């Protein structure tokens, strides 16, 4: 082999290529290699120092949710044929993966009631930024109006990307838990490229999506902004879908659809749009075609949008994205099925309502807003949230997210965001009520009636 290359030794091969002064003189300062069993034990020990949702009754949500992942998804995503292949640039050896993409797109399209979907983007927060770039490519305008009731990470991500796009981001405030309709309409002008809201929003409230879309479009005489909704796919069995609410581009975090929590990733971002945005979409899109013998097949389509061909004029730089996670997503949606997604939505809706009412009945707890909620809701505690949470944690219950701890915004002080899934039973909710009530009782400023403090 060395002879074929024309060098006398491995050493020579490197000497002749890498300038001597750049070659590492000492081995990397890393531990020695380990046998498989030792690596496993090491990683198991690390896992043991995390408290997973198996070891804690957890009501954490805020973007990622502990839904049950059916066992068949693991089986499929662990099949070598799905797990290990390269990107399907060669359709003749990748028909399976391409068809999965096609089916995924169809499912997302049905779910959002929007005619076109790509094959996934990275995740939910950067999906918002991706939608903003689509808007920029579409109308060339320079500002983005965004409801402050998006997940803070989504807004932060949007801001990072927007600096690159050379666009300004304008946040619209909320009123009683939802985007302030007046402020929203007022913020949008002829320079607004995209107007973005979340459904349900970060505080768990269901927005009047149709009204927001309509007022956004109506705010500009001629051509309104691109209306973008960040949706939670699991709620789309019960909530009016973006496509029926005047939304142009829907994005969202796909994790609730059959993806595990994984401490935040990998999961996938969904992205669907009206037909006219098809050629502005980022990422891969699979299409159906026929081969020479008339057999149906699938290919990556509209590749001229992509960076391989269009380079600096591509609609996006996104390349490797989330094929395997999107597979889990479409299998999950097929597992639920047409009826199941509605039933699951109704179930979570009912439990969310129950939990909210029970918790709000605790002395020292009130609803942060009165809007309808579907899977998550914000409360305001008349006590130090951090201290209350610590008490609950000691009882094995994670009561949800300290809003202030995540957002750092003053107005979120006292806020607790509680999420439900089909995994949290009524007994679990009742336990939360009990534990939270005790914790608040213990932490509440002595004698102070809730009304005063909350005023």
């Amino acid at each position, binding site marked *: 082999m060395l002879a074929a290359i024309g060098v006398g030794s491995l050493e020579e091969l490197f000497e002749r290529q890498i300038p001597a002064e750049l070659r590492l003189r000492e081995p990397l300062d890393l531990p020695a290699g380990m046998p498989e069993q030792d690596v496993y034990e090491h990683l198991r020990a690390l896992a043991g120092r995390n408290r997973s949702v198996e070891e804690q009754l957890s009501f954490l949500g805020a973007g990622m949710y502990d839904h049950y992942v059916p066992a068949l998804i693991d089986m499929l995503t662990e099949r070598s044929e799905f797990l290990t292949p390269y990107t399907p640039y060669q359709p003749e050896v990748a028909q399976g993966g391409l068809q999965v993409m096609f089916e995924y797109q169809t499912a997302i399209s049905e779910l959002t009631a929007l005619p076109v979907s790509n094959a996934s983007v*990275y995740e939910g927060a950067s999906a918002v930024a991706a939608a903003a770039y689509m808007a920029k490519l579409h109308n060339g305008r320079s500002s983005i109006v965004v409801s402050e009731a998006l997940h803070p990470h989504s807004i932060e991500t949007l801001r990072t990307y927007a600096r690159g796009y050379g666009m300004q981001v304008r946040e619209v405030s909320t009123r009683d838990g939802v985007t302030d309709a007046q402020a929203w309409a007022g913020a949008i002008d002829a320079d607004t490229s995209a107007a973005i809201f979340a459904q349900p929003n970060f505080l768990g409230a269901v927005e009047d999506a149709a009204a927001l879309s309509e007022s956004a479009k109506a705010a500009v005489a001629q051509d309104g902004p691109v209306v973008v909704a960040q949706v939670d796919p699991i709620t789309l069995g019960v909530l009016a879908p973006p496509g029926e609410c005047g939304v142009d581009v829907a994005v969202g975090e796909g994790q609730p659809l059959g993806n595990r929590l994984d401490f935040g990733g990998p999961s996938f971002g969904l992205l669907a749009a009206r037909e006219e945005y098809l050629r502005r979409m980022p990422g891969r899109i699979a299409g159906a075609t026929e081969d020479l013998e008339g057999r149906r097949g699938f290919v990556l389509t509209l590749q001229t949008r992509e960076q391989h061909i269009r380079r600096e004029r591509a609609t996006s730089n996104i390349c490797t994205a*989330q094929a395997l996670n999107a597979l889990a997503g479409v299998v999950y949606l097929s597992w639920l*099925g047409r009826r199941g997604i509605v039933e699951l939505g109704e179930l979570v*809706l009912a439990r969310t309502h129950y939990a909210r009412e029970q918790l709000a009945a605790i002395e020292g707890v009130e609803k942060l807003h009165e809007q309808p909620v579907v899977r998550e809701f914000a409360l305001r505690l008349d006590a130090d949230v951090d201290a209350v949470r610590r008490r609950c944690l000691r009882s094995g219950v994670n009561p949800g997210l300290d809003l202030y701890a995540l957002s750092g915004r003053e107005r979120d002080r006292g806020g607790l965001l509680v999420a439900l899934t089909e995994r949290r039973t009524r007994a679990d909710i009742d336990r939360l009520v009990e534990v939270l009530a005790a914790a608040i009782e213990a932490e509440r400023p002595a004698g102070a009636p809730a009304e005063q403090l909350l005023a």
Partner: protein
Amino acid sequence: MSVAPAERPGSEPGRTIFQKGAPGRRAFVCPDSEVPEIDPRELLPERLRRAQAPALPEVSEPELVRHYVGLSKRNYDLDSGFYPLGSCTMKHNPRLHERAAALPGHARLHPLQDPEHAQGALELMWRLQGALAEISGLPHVSLQPCAGSQGELAGVLLTRAYHEDRGERRHKVLTPDTAHGTNPATVTMAGLEVVKLETNGAGGVDLEDLRRKADDDVACLMLTNPNTLGIFDENIAEIAEIVHGVGATLYYDGANLNAIMGLTRPGDMGFDIVHFNLHKSFTQPHGGGGPGSGPIAVSERIAPFIPVPVVARASDGSFALDHDRPKSIGRLRAFHGNYGTFVRAYAYICSLGADGLQDASQTAVLNANYLLARLQEHGLAEYLPLAFGELCMHEFVLSGGPLKRRLQV
């Protein structure tokens, strides 16, 4: 009608899951809500409700399993043989990594779990940050980027932030005309302008052209080294000097990093920023197009700007997410990165250790070179795809050491 007899794998291709099953069928059994029943309109006003269920598939569990197992069989995978495409950046995907990543302590850990209850995950990330810093020779690491191209975006935004912090607005980014398509696409998305660099006969940067184009407007040079032919740009020191000479930064596209790990380091060559493709150099399975992971490592001068959060170790030995970086370019995504890929990459590094990583690289380079030699010999250089499969296999002849088994080029 459902799974027709003809629906055996291979036959009647193209029928989608939507065309199977029958109305009303499904795999999911819904748990009881257990809570008092309430008028649905009270829970959610009609106006906000979905009127018609989305037309998702209606299939039984066995139909579902058969359909997707059937589709899987229409894929060609790494566990069955080599790829005609992309094979030299693909590694064997040890199954240990899937097992470890599936442990509930990793897989079922909520990203917003309180840090004191996620110490194992944070330690793993911290150790991975350290290993990537050591491998790249660049001390500061962000694990945030979701894939190589997002790592590139981070890199270009970092460069912008660096220059802007010094009061400069530089708008050009130099990239060789052979650069991967994500490089120019990224530059545009980051609001800068691509300036193409000519390639010299050896496939490296044309120094003359570089000198000509390197001016005060240049923010950055993006480079892949070794390049796609497995050739190390011998002028790299000079390139760095030129680029740094005009105050620009040097970006390393790490897609080919697996060729140099343990042999030389981007940091030592003068690069300021490097991205890693954990799904290429560190065995994260490719999944037919993701998930990926594109951590970046940077030099001291770029460090203040890296994305938040970063995992930090406190003096008491505990680990925390550090968000308090006032000059940071901000977030690129929600939460802390593709943690599941970190578990696998870290497992790979643990398995191989310093020696193993070096062995892996040597084997990769040797093969790349052997490949090159053979291609030239046969005059086949233009037809890489077809020739790949046969030639890459000779890697096995080398892999005698106990750890080399993990190395697939």
